[in-house]
């Protein structure tokens, strides 16, 4: 006896202790107890000196086999326990994924800006350049060069804010066009977004301050067909491919012929609803071929060049786009309104 029994006992001890081990630390203690420098298997190896020379290698091999077996068993147990322990930790760390948290607040530009960006992207994509000009403007550019002579009804104080006899708050962004026409040579392809002013009292659909986007193209052989295509591109980009454009005869002092532009009602898509008064069309903007007299006044040869111009009311299309019923909301700045846009 002695050694062989001892080995057998160790086997049994390991098996039983392994079964009882329930933590990585006790497993580690077991490993030390068995395989450590002062462990039982090491002690057994040391005690080999008492064996005969012929038994020694045989026995050494048996002990090494035990060492490999014990190591394998301990490693296997350790792996299992580690997996178990991680599983338990993860379970303990479980959170209520439905518990609410505050979102990081990300702001937005004003609805007017959001729509303006769409419009500007559409026209810059067609080769239009954005040009801006002063809001406090000379009468000369706001009226005179646009074929709205002195004493024209459009100049009435009912409609126009005056600073003095020669200076007004621009009533449209067309004076920017006039400034460009007097300083540049054709071809011209510009849009002029900006604030404009009219002496209207504030209500749901009127405001003394609002925004326009006016466009101007001057080149040789520009026709009303070019104008229609340009505006169709705009309408389709903003409201969808199924939107049609309809021109109706109209009158503006700086264009001839002039047209009022209707789009397929964006609410009912042309079927007829309250918004379009059952006509299937909504009036969106005014446009026309630049009056040759305006070209001549601005120093552009109307025999050689022709052009078109259009004017879009930004608030109007923003209200259509988002279904805003009252324009005052856009200038009040209530967060409950502003937080709705994206």
């Amino acid at each position, binding site marked *: 006896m002695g050694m062989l029994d001892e080995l057998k006992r160790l086997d049994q001890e390991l098996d039983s202790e392994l079964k009882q081990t329930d933590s990585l630390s006790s497993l580690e203690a077991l490993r030390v107890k068995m395989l450590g420098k002062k462990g039982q298997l090491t002690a057994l190896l040391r005690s080999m000196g008492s064996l005969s020379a012929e038994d020694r290698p045989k026995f050494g091999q048996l002990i090494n086999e035990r060492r490999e077996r014990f190591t394998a068993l301990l490693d296997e147990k350790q792996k299992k326990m580690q997996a178990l322990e991680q599983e338990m930790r993860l379970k303990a760390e479980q959170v209520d994924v439905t518990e609410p948290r505050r979102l990081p*607040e*990300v*702001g*937005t*530009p*004003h609805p*007017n800006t959001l729509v303006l960006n769409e419009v*500007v992207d559409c026209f810059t*994509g*067609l*080769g*239009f*350049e*954005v040009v*801006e000009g*002063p*809001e*406090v*403007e*000379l009468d000369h550019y706001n009226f005179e060069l646009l074929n709205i002579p002195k*004493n024209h009804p459009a100049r*009435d104080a009912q409609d126009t*804010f*005056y*600073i003095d006899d020669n*200076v007004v*708050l621009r009533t449209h962004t067309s004076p920017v066009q006039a400034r460009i026409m007097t300083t540049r040579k054709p071809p011209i*392809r510009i849009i002029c*977004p900006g*604030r404009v*002013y009219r*002496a209207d009292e504030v209500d749901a659909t009127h405001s*003394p*301050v609002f925004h326009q986007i006016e466009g101007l193209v001057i080149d040789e*052989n520009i*026709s*009303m*067909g*070019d*104008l*229609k295509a340009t505006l169709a591109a705009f309408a389709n980009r903003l409201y969808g491919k199924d939107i049609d*454009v*309809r*021109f*109706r*005869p*109209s*009158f503006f002092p700086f264009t*001839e*012929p002039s*047209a009022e532009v209707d789009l397929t009602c964006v609410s009912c898509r042309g079927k007829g609803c309250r918004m379009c008064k059952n006509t299937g069309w909504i009036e969106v903007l005014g446009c026309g071929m630049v009056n*040759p007299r305006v070209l001549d006044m601005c120093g552009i040869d109307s025999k050689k060049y*022709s052009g078109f111009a259009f004017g879009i009311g930004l608030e109007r299309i923003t209200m259509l786009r988002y279904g805003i019923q009252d324009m005052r909301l856009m*200038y009040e*700045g*209530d*967060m*409950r309104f*502003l*937080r709705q846009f994206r």
Partner: protein
Amino acid sequence: MKVSMNLLKKYADILVSPAEYESRMIMTGTGVEGIEDLGEKLQNVVVGRVLTCEPHPDSDHLHVCTVDVGQGEPLQIVCGAPNVAAGQLVAVALIGAVLPGGTIKKGKLRGVESCGMLCSGPEMGVPVELYPSVGEAGILVFNEDHPLGTDVRDIFGLNDRVIDFEILANRPDTLCVWGVARETAAAMNTELHLPEITVKDCGEGDISDFARVEVKDSDLCPRYAARVIKNVRIGESPAWLRQALHAAGMRSINNVVDITNFVMMETGHPMHAFDLSKVRGSHIIVRRAQKGELLRTLDGKDHTLQGGELLICDEQGPTGLAGIMGGEESEITEGTATVLFEAAAFDRTSIRLTARSLGFRTEASGHFERGVSPATVLDGLNRACQLVNELDAGDVVPGIIDLYPEPVQNQPITASVDRINRRAGVCVSGEDMVSILKKLQFDVKLDGDTLTATAPSFRQDVDGEADLCEEVLRYAGYDLIPTTALRGAANGGRSAAMLQNDYARALLSGMGFYETMTFSFLAKKKLEMLNLAEGDDRLNPLPLRNPLGEDSAYMRTTLLCGVLTTAATNMAHGNADVRIYELGKVFDNVHRTEENLPTEKNALCLCAYGPKEDFYSMRVAAEALLARAGVNYVIRENEEPFFHPGRRASLVCGGTVIAEIGEIHPLVMENYELTQRAYAALIDLPALFDCAAPMGHVKPIARFPLVTRDIALVMKNAQPVGPVMEAMKQAAGRMLEDIQLFDVFRGVQVGLGNKSAAFSLAFRAEDHTLTDEEIQRLMNKVLKACKEQFGAEIRA
């Protein structure tokens, strides 16, 4: 402008449905704002004869009648009117009839079945001017004969639709029934039947025996024409005339006045009728008013004139405002025996300005403001006389006074068929253009490509090829315009200013700010509420000459007022955690441009309030805008009086103030009704971009390790850490990659009046690993600088 379809159909054939007609008119340029069916509330009411009328067995005031309505068996109807009697011709509302008060149903009255109702005038809602006896008590009894079963709307002239046309500013010629009829005939391609104007005068005497007219200011009155009617027989107008006026929303007065109103409606020429016996000296003088002259108009109002208004006067003085309203004195009355009809053309601007300055507008002034053609004045005048003949309202005196010193005549326009087509983008043949223009009563000639056209005398808006192009296109159809994409490449894009705004918006959105917009006007008070020092340019805003009110009398010199107002609104509405900004122009009235306009500057103003906000949260938001653009700035003192004096700063680059940040001063909070502390930043975007360093090439990534050293320095409590850190950077040089303040401590341990500030410094060299000795050398320099410049000692 409202036009009766019945009247219109006298002059132009309309063979299609109202809806189709409306659409055709809209597409040729005469807008339709609405169509009103005059008889909508009077349906299924017919003429019937009362055959029998017996007292009701169970009532002391009801009658049981049998009524023949011209179809089927007579109807049994119970009637409560005391005036009902057998043999009367009455208005019978049949079962299912619609009246203003509701629908008629079969019913029983005290046990007797009643199959309809006999109507009174008020029950049918018929105005007195349409049928004079409707005002009488009891049921309406027709005194004249009508076939049984006749729809009563035909008798009252209510079987009509009134179309409200939208007349374009350049087409005053269509501001009348004939004008619309001309457009209608052209649009529907039907015959136009305007009446031939012929006047039968009485053959005796001459107008010069009755009246004299003198136009002293013919610049404001290019044409003045008059005719005289004697033996005037004032009376009621016939039904057709009363009905026509009613449909257009006008009241019938008497035959002479009605003629003038009807002619204005028909021809677009406002007329005036004078009682000639009240025109002193029988002498009409047209002249400008002198300052201070007094005038009483027809409506009984007294006016003191500013001078320059065009007046109609007699030898004693003013009797009427030319083209706007006549005088009370020469008004037509029952006793008027001799009438002078005036038809004239007045200067549209003069009429408009006078009407505006006196604060009233009449149908006539409306016509003159839009422009009445001098060329067709006599058509109006003679049409009135023709109607006097027809209505037998008096005897027309031979002769016309017609003062028309400079007759206007439309000149022929030479145009090119090809150019018209190229402008419109369509392809209409020269022949088709001729036929369109002929339909519009132009005088046209075509010679190859050359089109020569003269507009009819009633048109004043056609004076060039572009106008002809529009006429052609209107009738060829705007729908013909194709869509042809723009040709040629063009280099489009956003303006520099727009890109700057885009930059700010993108960053601010990311930082949780929402864009707001407010009006560019403000009350001066709002600026004063900012606590600004006297002499501040911002207290000198640009005033409007005609503001809507005191609240919007000036152009803003800063965005702060609008943004603070928006913040206050949000506080009042209970909105928590608010970050907003506005981007827009501010107007510097003191510094002027070359054109002597105020300087307009693109400004940005941020504002925030809420538990997470403080001075620093606002400062870092502003700093982010500068830093992201590569602006190398320092924090400096700020003295804006609307900020808390201990919580305000400027971000400065090379002497330019780019941003001003602060907590709102309690006084300003109170002024703006801010109920919580709020923080604001004013940012000069153009300056920011002037100072921005353009992005160059990227730097290589450093390969050598970063070494950090923490130090705590004790300094005076009042010592700002900013300059200390700047000095540290200066001293350490380019090896110092980053420096952070991570703690500030105040307590007895560091001495009273002192604070300890802890910094973390990170060093790195591009080309080698820094040694301890090197770092120690750098740290020594840093400590030395801190000690020498700020007396800051390393904390023991």
